[in-house]
């Protein structure tokens, strides 16, 4: 019988309310809570227990693979390596995500290192949510690393969300994009209190027709700190765009450091960054609709991070 805290975290990070029908792996405090393969998706635990290999057969289409992680033991610290091998011409969805419930005084930490190898013309939609909760004063730390290798014509869309409860996070995403492949990243992040979040994107556009679009939207509240580092190298005729858009509130600090390098004359690279508080006129407009100031702020923030 699954504990309520575990069920809640699975719902928060993977929208799971029951066991999925396809392939899945649920990791709880370093162990395997449940695992299932499907006809075309095989999940194999690594021999050292520190992760899994997920192999998706070529031409697999329409499957959703769930690999959520739950840590609810205060003081539990782990580094996990998950490797994804996506065959040619696949079109699949992968739902990851990690939640920490910490009612104790000790640090709980999960560092998930995910490496994706997408075969020719494969398409992956990858969603990961990070979430923390619990009444203890023990820190909740998540340091996800995502490395993506896209073969010719492959497409990956990564949606990464961290909305609440994580005290410290260092998020690293690296992409190597080959001919006619596309890597899209959409990040949504909110920090409050004394939380700290560092996000690093490093995308290498190596093939002709390679493209990337990295979009980060964040809200920093309280005394929190956010740092956004974005690096795109255009090494071929390619197109790259990165965008950091942050709302800053209270005494928070947001830092955006863009870096775009064109190593080829036909590399077209753009970076946009905007940091600012909620516009007073936005609040006034919503107040004229009958919302009070706090409700107006909440609607603006929720809409921005939706």
């Amino acid at each position, binding site marked *: 019988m699954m504990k309520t805290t575990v069920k809640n975290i699975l719902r928060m990070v993977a929208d799971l309310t029951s066991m999925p029908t396809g392939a899945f792996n649920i990791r709880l405090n370093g162990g395997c809570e449940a695992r299932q393969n499907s006809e075309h998706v095989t999940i194999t635990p690594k021999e050292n227990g520190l992760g899994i290999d997920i192999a998706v057969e070529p031409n697999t289409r329409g499957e959703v693979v769930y690999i959520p992680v739950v840590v609810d033991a205060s003081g539990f610290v782990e580094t996990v390596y998950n490797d994804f091998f996506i065959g040619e011409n696949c079109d699949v969805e992968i739902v990851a995500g990690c939640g920490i419930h910490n009612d104790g005084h000790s640090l709980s930490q999960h560092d998930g290192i995910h490496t994706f190898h997408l075969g020719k013309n494969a398409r992956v939609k990858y969603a990961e949510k990070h979430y923390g909760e619990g009444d203890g004063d023990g820190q909740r730390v998540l340091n996800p690393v995502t490395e993506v290798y896209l073969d010719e014509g492959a497409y990956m869309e990564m949606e990464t969300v961290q909305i609440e409860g994580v005290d410290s996070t260092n998020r690293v995403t690296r992409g190597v994009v080959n001919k006619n492949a596309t890597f899209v990243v959409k990040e949504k992040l909110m920090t409050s209190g004394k939380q700290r979040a560092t996000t690093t994107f490093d995308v290498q556009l190596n093939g002709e027709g390679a493209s990337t679009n990295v979009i980060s939207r964040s809200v920093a509240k309280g005394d929190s700190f956010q740092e956004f580092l974005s690096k795109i190298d255009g090494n071929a005729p390619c197109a790259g765009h990165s965008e950091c858009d942050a709302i800053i509130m209270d005494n928070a600090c947001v830092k955006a450091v863009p870096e775009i390098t064109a190593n080829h004359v036909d590399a077209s690279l753009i970076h946009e960054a905007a940091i600012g508080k909620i516009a007073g006129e936005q609040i006034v407009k919503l107040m004229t609709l009958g919302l009070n100031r706090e409700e107006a702020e909440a*609607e603006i923030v*929720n*809409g*921005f991070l939706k």
Partner: protein
Amino acid sequence: MLELKNISFAVKEPNENKKEILNNINLTIQDNRFVIITGPNGGGKSTLAKIIMGIEQPTQGQILFNGQDITHMDITQRAKLGIGFAFQQPVRFKGLTVKELLSLATNKEVNQHQLCEYLSQVGLCAKDYIDREVNASLSGGELKRIEIAMLMARGVKLSIFDEPEAGIDLWSFHNLIQVFRRLRDEKNGSVLIISHQERILEIADEIVVVSAGQITAHGSREEILPELLNNADSCRFYKAQQRSVNA
């Protein structure tokens, strides 16, 4: 009924001098009246509208709404009492959709049918806009029409439109007049419009002329409009506006 009593509004200029924007305004708007405020640019019309909504606080005077003193109420309280405002330059919201804003305006989850009803009045097809974010991807004209639709959807006792014609193309303007005509005929509340447009003035029950921070004329359309159009001395502002619009 809205009553403005001895309303004044002043701001401090960078050199610390006091600048009077509104000076001792007295104005009563009866229920279900369709009132246009007109006058030269910089005369204080928009400030007056903002003072009614609570966006600006008067430095002196009293505002009564249906007999209740609302002078010190904030925007939210006035909105809840039934005052609504459509901005001259509508604000954009990254992430909030047309549907979400209209749901906030009506305080309920609006369905496709209702969206069609609200948006078609301003010449927009709901299907094209339902999930559109109210962000920089919308043109100024689209944004303006959504702003007007939001206020009409609220169905409040007093609707204030600040220059609704600004940024609207000719075709939409024709429809806008029809919309305002219908609002006037339905008599479901008072409508206060800041406008320079003759065609909007032509459908007014009453016209108020605000110039240099004061009400220089107030009366029925029949009384005021001919004077505005014909009296060269008092209407240079108005003819200049018309020339620029028609150019």
